């Protein structure tokens, strides 16, 4: 009913295949981005930045990465945490050893290293499928976790095994306040998200989806499984790597391998599933949901005015979280993205039901 599409006609394929073919969507998204860049800084406070906005954005990026691999190419992976770690530590070491390198390049380097590792651990996907592959990716997870815990060089021989980054700055601008952290992350995420949308809409995206939907048919139209799968692993890992670097540098500042353990992998996987497989938008929605739910649950006791021991709270948090996941999977296995799509369709068809 909000959609009034009369008079929106396409005279070129370029227009017909735009990201948001419907004018209303274009305006909405544009407004949203503008608000994120200009509006938010006006109203947000420290807590909102560090506990909500920044985590959501960074993890959305990771989720996009995993979504490319799992949602678009159909390869289940439980190694996300490990690849994030690669990004973080690679970035750390570059920044450490070549201080003059621009921060952006540092992040990219993190992504590239993750890409290489991703391709390496992606190789098995050519022979093994489904849950076998999933477990295989656990190998990456645990091996990497271990490596960063034990190989002293990575942590620059820090006795505690935890690493810390100093003052950040981009092109001379110091990134010292949460507000600036936020804007930095936002810019990177927006750009990479846009790139991802372009990728999945184009030839490469189609080869991935073809692999996912029916690998046999994909082969007969000339798609090389090797190329399709490895490219998915590579690009996915790049996104995850960058996310890892951001997580380390911007969100944490100082961290140890535990920050990227198996639970991180699951967290991101949840985001992808709950958000919706095969949807960039879903990655954002999923991330928001997974980050906000615990925060909310955490407040819950106070809200309903009962005091519990922190341990009890964390346990209840676990329970509710698990329950929520299951509940959501039962209600809409295809995630928020599907809900969104359905809602939108309803609005377009309004008042008709179909």
């Amino acid at each position: 009913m909000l959609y009034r599409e009369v008079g929106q006609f396409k005279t070129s394929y370029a227009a017909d295949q735009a990201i948001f073919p419907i004018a209303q969507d274009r305006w909405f998204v544009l407004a949203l981005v503008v608000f994120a860049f200009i509006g938010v800084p006006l109203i947000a406070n420290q807590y909102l930045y560090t506990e909500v906005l920044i985590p959501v954005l960074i993890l959305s990026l990771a989720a996009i990465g995993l979504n490319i691999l799992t949602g678009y190419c159909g390869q289940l992976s439980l190694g996300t945490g490990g690849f994030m770690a690669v990004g973080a530590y690679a970035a750390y070491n570059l920044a450490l050893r070549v201080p003059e390198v621009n921060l952006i390049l540092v992040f990219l380097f993190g992504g590239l290293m993750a890409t290489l590792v991703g391709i390496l651990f992606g190789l098995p996907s050519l022979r093994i499928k489904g849950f076998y592959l999933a477990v295989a990716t656990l190998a990456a997870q645990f091996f990497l976790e271990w490596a960063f815990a034990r190989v002293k060089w990575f942590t620059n021989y820090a006795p505690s095994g935890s690493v810390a980054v100093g003052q950040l700055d981009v092109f001379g601008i110091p990134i010292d306040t949460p507000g600036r952290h936020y804007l930095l992350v936002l810019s990177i995420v927006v750009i990479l998200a846009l790139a991802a949308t372009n990728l999945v809409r184009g030839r490469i995206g189609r080869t991935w989806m073809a692999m996912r939907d029916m690998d046999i048919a994909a082969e007969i139209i000339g798609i090389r499984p090797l190329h399709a799968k490895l490219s998915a692993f590579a690009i996915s890992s790049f996104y995850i790597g960058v996310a890892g670097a951001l997580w380390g540098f911007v969100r944490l500042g100082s961290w140890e391998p535990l920050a990227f353990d198996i639970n991180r992998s699951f967290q991101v996987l949840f985001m992808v599933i709950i958000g919706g497989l095969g949807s960039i938008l879903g990655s954002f929605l999923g991330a928001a949901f997974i980050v906000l739910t615990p925060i909310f649950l955490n407040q819950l006791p106070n809200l309903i005015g009962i005091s519990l021991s922190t341990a009890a709270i964390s346990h209840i948090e676990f329970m509710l979280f698990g329950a929520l996941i299951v509940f959501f999977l039962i209600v809409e296995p295809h995630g928020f993205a599907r809900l969104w799509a359905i809602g939108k369709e309803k609005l377009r068809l309004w008042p008709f039901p179909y």
Partner: protein
Amino acid sequence: MLGPILETLIGGLLTGILYSLVALGFVLIFKASGVFNFAQGAMVLFAALALARLSEVMPFLLALALSALIMIALAYAIEFLVLRHLVNQEGIILFMATLGITYFLDGFGQSVWGSDIYKIRLGLPQDPIFILESMFPGGLLIDPAELVAAVICAVMVAVLAVFFQVTRVGRALRAVADDHQAAQSVGIPLNHIWLMVWAVSGLVALVAGMIWGAKLGVQFSISLVALKALPVLILGGLTSIPGAIVGGLIIGAGEKLAEVLLSPVLIRWFDLAGGGIENWFAYVLALVFLLVRPQGLFGERIIERI
């Protein structure tokens, strides 16, 4: 030099049997319902906690029986509240659901039973036994608890084998594994069968939890150690019971040996802060193995129908 190695080997094999036990749980469920039940580890922890706390207030056997009932109830709850609402969803969705269940159980278990470390006393002989003293100076040390454990596992496996071969339900389960239509023809409704397998693997979890608890004490880490069952699984093949057993042994022995033999080397070469390669060795081993045999040791060959 050979002595210690043999010791580790035996030690490894015995731990391996524990892995197999957990892996068995996975296999049962995957075989029958195609669900990749990530919650198996959580179930082990849950069972162990239940047993430990109950045995504090009542005679052990009673506690055991009660825990068994609890596990069956749990299986029923899972089937009733989760699975039946997710029939014919893709595997990944069910997998995520079990992840959800994992979180729930971890939280639930600890808030019900508490989150400290508890003991399970099986009253096993504690003092170590030495064998083959004639062959090795000082002989080989063996922890009797693990021996007992081994025996129990052996019994479990035997029981399951019988269960699958002989009983009607067992046959039904095998049928289901092949295809669901067949299951109907056996005349047992699908969700009954699922209920059944979840109950059974619940009991398996209980046994695993019991032994583990007795060995390491009942604590949160158990549910993580249970992850070890995953490489065992893919090594043995997701659908093969013998696979789970053999895989367990290989992994158990493999990682212990690696720790002893490989760690020092790695530490020397890469200047590591300590070894602990058993954290990943199992997985990498399994991974490498998969590259050679994608369907695992005993798993059915996946033939693509065109």
